[in-house]
């Protein structure tokens, strides 16, 4: 208990990641699912930063930049899709999206 070791960070990141993954599986609103995915990505970021500090290596921090950029690009596309769906059917609930079955 003397120090905050790397194990703590791994545990915290794993908890955040599981919360995100559960959120994706359980929630029905597309925007909330989307936030859960962001939580998963940020759990990865946290892990990268923690390991970079632990290993004394900068690569992990560079990774965070790229993950954030990619997440932003995904947000842009995701929001646009959500807006476009909302215009067509007044809802972003994924349970309403069952046009195709077979």
């Amino acid at each position, binding site marked *: 208990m003397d120090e905050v070791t790397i194990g703590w960070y791994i545990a915290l990141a794993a908890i955040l990641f599981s919360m*995100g993954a559960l959120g994706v599986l359980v929630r029905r609103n597309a925007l909330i699912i989307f936030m859960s995915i962001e939580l998963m990505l940020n759990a990865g970021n946290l892990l990268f930063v923690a390991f970079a500090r632990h290993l004394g290596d900068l690569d992990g921090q560079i990774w965070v930049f790229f993950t954030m950029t990619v997440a932003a690009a*995904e947000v842009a596309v995701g929001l646009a899709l959500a807006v476009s769906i909302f215009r067509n059917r007044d809802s972003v609930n*994924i349970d309403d999206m069952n046009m195709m079955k077979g």
Partner: protein
Amino acid sequence: MQFVEPTLNLSVILPIIILTFSTLLLMFVDFWVPDERKDITGWLSLFPLGGALTATFFQWDTIKGAFNSSVLQDNFSTYLSILYLITGMLSVLISIGYIRKRGHGRSEYYFLMLFSLVGMMLMGMANDLLIVFLALELLSIPLYIMSGFDRTDLNSEESALKYFLLGAFSSGFLVFGIALIYGAVGSTALPDIAEGIATSGTVGLAGIAMLLVGFMFKVGTVPFHMWTPDVYQGAPTSVTAFMSVGAKVAGFAALMRVLISSMGSMDEKWIPALAVIAAATMIVGNIAALTQTNIKRLLAYSSIAHAGYILMAVTASTKSDDGVGAALFYMMTYMFTNLGAFAAVMAMERFSGNKQLDLDDYKGMGKHNFAFAIVMMLLMFSLTGIPLTGGFVGKFYVFKTALEADLVWLVIIAALTSVVSAFYYMRVVFNMFMFDGEIDMPTVPNALKLVMAVAAIATLVLGVLPADWYTIAQNALMTTGG
């Protein structure tokens, strides 16, 4: 700390530079193309592809690293780049008339497709997990938009959102897995991982598992295949054709590179896992396809099944010398056959009322349009794997390489599921020749006819005279290390 300039070797990514910048140029040229004649942009987009293809041909047989070896050019990547660029050209050809109607005359479609191709090409070259990740996203994000390109069609929108949410979900797994590997090894470069992974313990193993989950989502293998049928059915058919070939092949390319060059030393850990997944994918894909009545959905399940066959070759690739060659050859036959099959679907498709995507709509085709029916039959034969078609030769080499790797049980499952697959592919053929029906076929654009002809000829050539082509695939070796 002194800054050391990295070795660039820009010649390695020359095709990518050509494709990127000529696409940017095209985006601006497009402003002078009148709105009602956006087909011109489609035809113009063949030039960046042609330029990149020419540059890629000159790269054959040279092995070089670039950007401090985070990007690697070898015959493996060159072969794949050629496949992607041909896929791109054929996809542009089938899209032009189709997107005019379903895409509301918007030309962004072509830019998105070209940028997605840049991502695919980078994926074959990636020698660092960072490049793998960035290339994967560069490939996927345009595809999300393309799936929803018909924004007045609820199916298309729904398919885009599903694809997007599951794609982003799998990116989460990928990032987290890579972060764990980074923590265990201290680097994300594939050669460094190859050195450190064997001693990396639980953290490294967990990382590999999550990385594989991410990849399996992207290539659509069981149990991460649920999104495939909905997305393939809802997206505009030209997009389905493009992503069923391009995105899948690119996903497998990166998977092979990562598994073989960085995790080859611990293959006794991942071979059983991948073998089980391959078997499950073949079984689920082929059996679910049996009950489908919508042709796009049928082809979606068929593409899941084919992912299983490719995965079988990937599984065998560390134990057998021909594993990579067999997988690459299979990808080539799959590319031509699948693009041809989707082109045939598009030739029948209508945009309002009865969309003519049911298997029943093909009844009586043999009498109505004999040439079309023969080509469709040939493509269905090839997807089944009947001799004298490319599909048969591809399956033959995949089975052979799996036998060399002592995966006998897997080969038995693969052979049995191939027999099962004959039932649903033959249903299309029977509908065309054994039944009578009214065919109401739209006039087929010449570009579509051309793509179908190319696909049919390529399927025949690969089936009858495969030796030279297989040699090329075998020579497309992967370089490991920096």
